[in-house]
């Protein structure tokens, strides 16, 4: 009985501490778990790849030929490849982005991703100059999401597909400008496409800076399909992404544009 009382008090105090220090606590545990996340992610990835290999046993011979060929091509590069080179290329990419687009970017690593919640955590935070609303991209100027909550050393990023997200986009090579909408699932929707406007599958959809949310010219996705009904005055396009969010390891935060 006495033990129970003590535990009740500890839990009550714990809840109060959580409410008071939620940002510091989150930052602390993200910091503590960063390397374990990386370890588990690497381990999971290599085991998943082994399983994939087993399931694709039928194509083993074909794969083997392909891998032999690829191996020859890569042998020369392998010697010099390493973490340093990777980091170097990320930084170079960041510099290229700055030079080409006039964007001031900061490279960051993804700590983990919660696809269900349309959310990921990156290892850059307030100390690195991040503030809420900064756009997050990956290489080739592909938009991923925006910074949401910012902690000392980390930041939450909400993906474009988050329920309620809405921003102006431009269908490339047309003069169509509409708003893209996320519904919390895996796709984005362009709801108010005028019926007379023709959009095709695989048309590129890019950002526009019309309302200042994002810089213009960032790739949002490609048109997967268009829903067209005689009963509605608008057509709806569904977008798909050119990347798999769970496979992303490196991102860039656009600090200024």
């Amino acid at each position: 009985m006495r033990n129970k009382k003590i535990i009740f008090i500890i839990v009550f105090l714990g809840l109060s501490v959580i409410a008071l220090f939620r940002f510091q606590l989150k930052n602390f545990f993200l910091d503590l778990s960063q390397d374990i996340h990386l370890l588990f992610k690497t381990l999971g990835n290599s085991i998943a790849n082994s399983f994939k290999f087993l399931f694709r046993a039928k194509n083993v011979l074909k794969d083997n030929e392909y891998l032999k060929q690829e191996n020859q091509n890569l042998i020369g590069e392998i010697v010099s490849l390493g973490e340093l080179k990777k980091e170097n290329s990320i930084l170079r990419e960041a510099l290229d982005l700055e030079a080409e687009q006039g964007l001031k970017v900061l490279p960051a690593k993804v700590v983990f991703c919660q696809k269900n919640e349309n959310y990921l955590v990156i290892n850059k935070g307030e100390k690195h100059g991040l503030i809420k609303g900064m756009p997050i991209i990956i290489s080739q100027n592909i938009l991923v999401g925006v910074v949401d909550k910012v902690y000392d050393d980390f930041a939450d990023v909400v993906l474009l597909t988050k329920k309620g997200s809405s921003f102006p986009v431009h269908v490339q090579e047309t003069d169509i400008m509409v708003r893209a909408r996320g519904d919390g699932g895996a796709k984005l929707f362009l709801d108010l496409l005028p019926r007379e406007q023709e959009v095709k599958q695989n048309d590129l959809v890019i950002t526009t800076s019309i309302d200042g949310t994002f810089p213009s010219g960032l790739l949002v996705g490609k048109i997967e399909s268009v829903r067209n009904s005689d009963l509605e005055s608008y057509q709806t396009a569904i977008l798909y992404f050119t990347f798999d969010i769970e496979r992303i390891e490196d991102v860039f935060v656009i600090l200024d544009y």
Partner: protein
Amino acid sequence: MFKRIIFLFFGFFLLAILQISFFSHFSILGQTPNFILSVLFLLVFFEKDDETFLLPGIFFAGFFSDIFSSRLLGISILILGLDVFLMKKVLKNVKKQNILVFIFLFLLFAIFYQGLLAVIDNVINGFGFFSLPEFFVQISYTMFFTILQFILCLNFISRKS
């Protein structure tokens, strides 16, 4: 006593990371098993006489569920607390304890937790996307591992006694 509390702390901490970072590579329809939920249920199911560790168990399970999600810190602690409280009431009236009863009770426990969380995610946080197939895939995926753990626990208990 403190040894077990520390064990619970690190146990739930590692389980949370395992389900996010390791099992994201083995997702089905984008769903990963919820080990935190399954281990907490086993704790509720097998720790009938000694309830001293349930409160810290709920606390750590909820805490680490929220730390690695975009939810407000503390929400899962409250939902899990309510879920465990109700499950305890149900367990008091359950006479038989076989695997079918275990599966049925776990389903109740998981549907209550995931359902309430989905409602909160949709209504309060606004980030939820409720899909019935995904909901059941996650519960089934979690249940598969829970049954495995249940069998392991039974083996462990029978060896001990």
